[in-house]
C-alpha cells in the first residue's frame, strides 16, 4: 500500500512540475493545483497511513495521527486562496497583455525593441 501511495504522490508531483514549467498561465495554474494535491497528500502521509482509524474519539480503537490532518486542512484552504489569486492574476495578465503567456506579450516586446533600434 505504501508503495502505491508513494507512486501517487510521485505522479502528482511529476505532472504538477511538468505543467508548472509550461509557457502559458492556464497550464501553470493547473500544474500548481496538481502539485498542491501531491503536497497535501504528502503532508498527510507524514502521519502515516491508517485505515478506519479516523481521529474521532470513540469511533475506533486506535486513531490516525490527527495533527497532519489539521495541517493539511490548513494547507488546502491556503492553497485554495493562492490558486484563486493566481487564477485572477492570470486573467489580469490576459487583460493587460492580450496574451496568456506567462511572460506577457512577448511579440509586443520584440516589436517595441525593434522600434527602439
Amino acid at each position, binding site marked *: 500500500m505504501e508503495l502505491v501511495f508513494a507512486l501517487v504522490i510521485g505522479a502528482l508531483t511529476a505532472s504538477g512540475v511538468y505543467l*508548472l514549467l509550461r509557457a502559458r498561465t492556464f497550464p501553470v495554474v*493547473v500544474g500548481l493545483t496538481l502539485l498542491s494535491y501531491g503536497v497535501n497528500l504528502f503532508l498527510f502521509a507524514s502521519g502515516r497511513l491508517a485505515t478506519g482509524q479516523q481521529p474521532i474519539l470513540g469511533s475506533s480503537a486506535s486513531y490516525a495521527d490527527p495533527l497532519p490532518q489539521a495541517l493539511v486542512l490548513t494547507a488546502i484552504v491556503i492553497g485554495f486562496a493562492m490558486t484563486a489569486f493566481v487564477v485572477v492574476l492570470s486573467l489580469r495578465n490576459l487583460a493587460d497583455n492580450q496574451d496568456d503567456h506567462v511572460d506577457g506579450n512577448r511579440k509586443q516586446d520584440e516589436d517595441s525593441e525593434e522600434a527602439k533600434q
Partner: protein
Amino acid sequence: MSLPLVVFLPFLVAIAAPLFAQGGRTAIAIVSSIPAIIGLAALFPHWETLAGGGVVHNSWEWLPALGISFSFRLDGLALLFALLILIIGLLIILYARYYLKKGENIGKFYALLLCFKGSMLGIVLSGNLLLMMIFWELTSLTSFLLISFWTHKQDARRGARMALAVTGGGGLALLAGILIIGNIVGSFELDAVLAAGDLIKNHAMYPVALTLILLGAFTKSAQFPFHFWLPHAMQAPTPVSAYLHSATMVKAGVFLMARLYPALAGTEQWFYMVSFTGMATLLVGAYVAMFKHDLKGLLAHSTVSHLGLITLLFGMGTELAAVAAVFHVINHATFKASLFMAAGIIDHETGTRDMRRINGLWRYMPHTATLAMVAASSMAGVPLLNGFLSKEMFFAESLQLNLPGIWAWIPPIVATLAGIFAVAYSARFVHDVFFNGKPVNLPIYPPHEPPRYMKIPVEILVFACVMVGVFPAYSVGPLLYSASAATLGGEVPDYHLAVMHGFNLPLMMSFAAFIGGLIMYSQRQKFFDFHARFKEVDEKAVFEAVVSRFVELANRFTARIENGSLQRYAVLLVGSAIVVAMVPLATMGIFVGENGLSPVDWPTAIAAAILIFCALASAFLHRGRFTSLMFLSVVGLLVALAFARFSAPDLAMTQLSVEVVTMVLLMLALFYMPSWTPLETSGTHRARDIVLALLAGGGMTLVTLAMLTQPFTSISEFFLENSKTGGGGTNVVNVILVDFRGFDTLGEITVLAIAALGIYAMLKDTALTPPPGDGEGHAWTRDAYPLMLKQIARPMLPLALMISAYIFLRGHNLPGGGFIAGLITSVALILQYIASGMVWTQDRIGIKYHNVIGLGLIFATIAGAGSFVYGYPFLTTTFDYITWPVVGKFEVASALVFDLGVYLAVIGATLLALVSIGRLSPHSAIRSPRENV
C-alpha cells in the same frame, strides 16, 4: 578638546553657510573663514608640546566593537598638514570670493568646501586608522561634489565621477589594508600601530596589507598608473583645483605614506613598490605637462610629476629622503597653490586657458605676471626659491641609493630628466603666457588686472616661497623638524637647511636640468611635432567608454540571466530543490523502513492507478485545456477519496468542497482564455522539463516510501488525550484547528480574506473581452439561465443551508466544522449565481461580502480575545455543559464562536472572489447604485 573642534567646526559651519548666501559673497566668505581662524587659534597653543617632540591626544570612546574611537592625535606631521590645509584654505576662501560670479550657487560652494576641509583635517588629525578611513572616503565624496560643481558641464561630471571611482575605489583597498593592519596589531589606534612596525613588517600578511594601503595612497595622490583622474578634476572651479591639488586631496595620499612610514617603510617591498611608482609618475607627469596647451592641464600634470617626486623620496627609505619629502610637500603646496590661483586669474580675465591664445600678458597684467613668474621659477627649481631647496635634496638623495650595478644610475638620470622637463614646462608657462607676442583672439579683450584682493592670496604664497627659499632654517626649520621627527618616529637625521651647500653633484644636476630645460623649451616645436605623432588619449573618454562598456556588459549579462522568463526561473527553483535534496536522497536510495510494506487492496490500487493515470493525462494532454481540466477534476475527486480511505473524513470533505470551487474558478477564467495551448516550447526544453518532472516525482516517491515505512512517534498523543477533556470535542482534527492550533486557523482565514480582497482590488478596473464563442467556433447560447436549473437550484438553497448548519454544529465532535460548512453555503449560493445570474442573486443577498469577511475575522478574533478577561492567553477556549429545561443538556464552547468566524470568513471570501470574476462578464449588468460586492 581642541582637536575635534578643529575637525568638526568646518562641518558645523558648512551647515550654516548656505544661510548666509543671501547676504552676498563677502558675508559668506567671512562666515566660512571662521573655522579656519578658530582652527589655527586652537592649534597654536600646542606648538610648545609638539616642538618638544610631544603628541597631543584628544579622544573618547565611540564604537569599541569596531575598534573605532573618536581619537584625535596631533604631532608634528599632523600639524604641518593641518597648517597647510587651514592656511591655504583660508586663502582659497578669500580668492573664491572674487572668483565666483554673482549668479552662482555660492552657498553650496562654500558648504562643500568647508566639508572638504573638515574631512581633510579629519584625515590628518585622526588618531585612529578607521576614523581616518572615514574621513578619507569623505574627502573622496566631497571632492566629487566639488569637482562637479558646475553640474551642467559634461566634462565636470565625468571628471568628478572618474575621481570618485579612482579615489573611492582606492579607499576601499585602503580599508582592507587597514583592517589587516588592525588585525595584526590588535588595535587601530595610531599610537599602537606606529609602535608595532616590526610586528607588522614581519607578519605574513604584510605584503598584502602594504599593497592594499599603497593602492589607497597611490590612487589618492594620483600616482602612475592611477594618475589620470587628476588632470580631469581640473574641471572644477579654479579655487577648488588650487586647493585640492596643492595642499589637500592629493596630499592625503602622501600624508598616508608619511603617517605610516614607521609602520610600513624600510622593507624591500616598500622600496620597490613606492620608489618605482614614484619614478614612473615623476617622469610621466613631467613629460605630459610639457605638451599641455591648457594652462591648468600643464599645472595638473606638473602636480602629478611632483607627487611622483615626493613618493619617490618616501620610497627611497632613507631618513634624509623622508625629510626631503616632507619639505617638498610644503614647497609644492605653496608654489602650486599660487600658480593655480594665478592661472585662475588669467582664466578669469581672459576667458580662456589655452596657451596658444594667451600670449604677451605682461603688458596687460604685470603684477599678476610677476607673481606667477616667481612661483613658476620655484616650480622649476630656481635657486633662492623654496622649490630649489627640496629639489637639491632630492637630487642628493637620488645619488645615495644603493642599487646594484647599472641600476644605481637610473634614479639620478630620471631625476635629472624630470628636472629638465620641469624647467621646460615652467619656462613654457612663463614665456608663452606673459611674452611670446600678442594675445590671439581672446574672448575677453583687453585683459586687465583682477580685483586687488584677489591677488592677496597669491602674494602671500609667493612671499612664502621666497621666504622659505632664502631663509629656510628660520622660516620652516622648526616645523619641518618637528614634522620629520613625527614621520620618522622620533629619530631625525642630521640635515642642514641652507641656500647653498657648495658646488657638488646635486648642484650640477640642477644646473644640467636648467640648461637642458631651456634648450628643450627653445626647441619645443620639434618636441611638439614628435609628441603629435602619438594619438592623444583622452582618459575621460576612455574611462567613460570603460564604464559604458562595463554597464553594457553587465546589462547584457543581466538580461541573459534575468531574462524575464518565468519558465527559466521555475526551472531554477525546482532544479535547486531537486539538487539539494538529491544529495541525501541518493545516499538513501530506495529504502523501505522497519515497518515494511502493508498489503495492497485492489480497489484502492485501482483507484490509485486511475489517479496516477489522470494526473499524467492532465499533464500530457494539457494543450486541450478543457480536457485537462476534466482530468484534474477526477484527480481532485480521487484525492478526496484517498483522504476518506485513509481515515481523514474532514479532509475528504474539505478537499471536495475546495475542488468544486476551484473548478468553477478555473472555468470562469477559462472562459476568457484561449481553449488551446499552442505548442511553443522547443523539444529540448520539453525534454528538460520532463527530466525535471520525473526527478521531482521520483524523489517524492522515494521520500514517501521511506517515510511511510519508518516508525515514529509524534506529539499527537497529547491531542488525542486532551481533545475531549481540554478542548471539549471528540473530533480531534477540529479541536486542533479551533483550539490547539487555533492560531494557524486564524492565519489561514486571514489568508483567505486577504486573497479575496486582493482579487477584488485587482479586478476592479480590469476589462476583458470574452471570445464570442467556444474554441470550435460555436457561438454561445442565448439561454443564460435554463429553466430547470433555476427551478431546482432554488429549493436546494434552504436544504444546503440546513446541511451546512448541521455540518457546522457537529464539527466539534464529528467530521465537519466551520470551514466545510462555509464552503457548502458558498457553493449553494454559487449555484444560485450560476442558475439565476448575478443581478438576481445579488439583489437577494443584499450584503457586502467585505462585511461578511470582516465579521468573520472579528468573530474569530473576539472568540480568541475573550480569554484575556480571565487572564488566559489568546485563543484559550472554554466550554461547559449547560442544562436547560426542554433543551436538555448541551455543550457551549467558545471554540464554536471561533468556528463561526471561520464559517463567515470562508463564505465572504469565496463569494467575493468568485463574484469579482463573474462581474467581468459583459452579460452581467450589475451596476446597481449601491454596489453590493
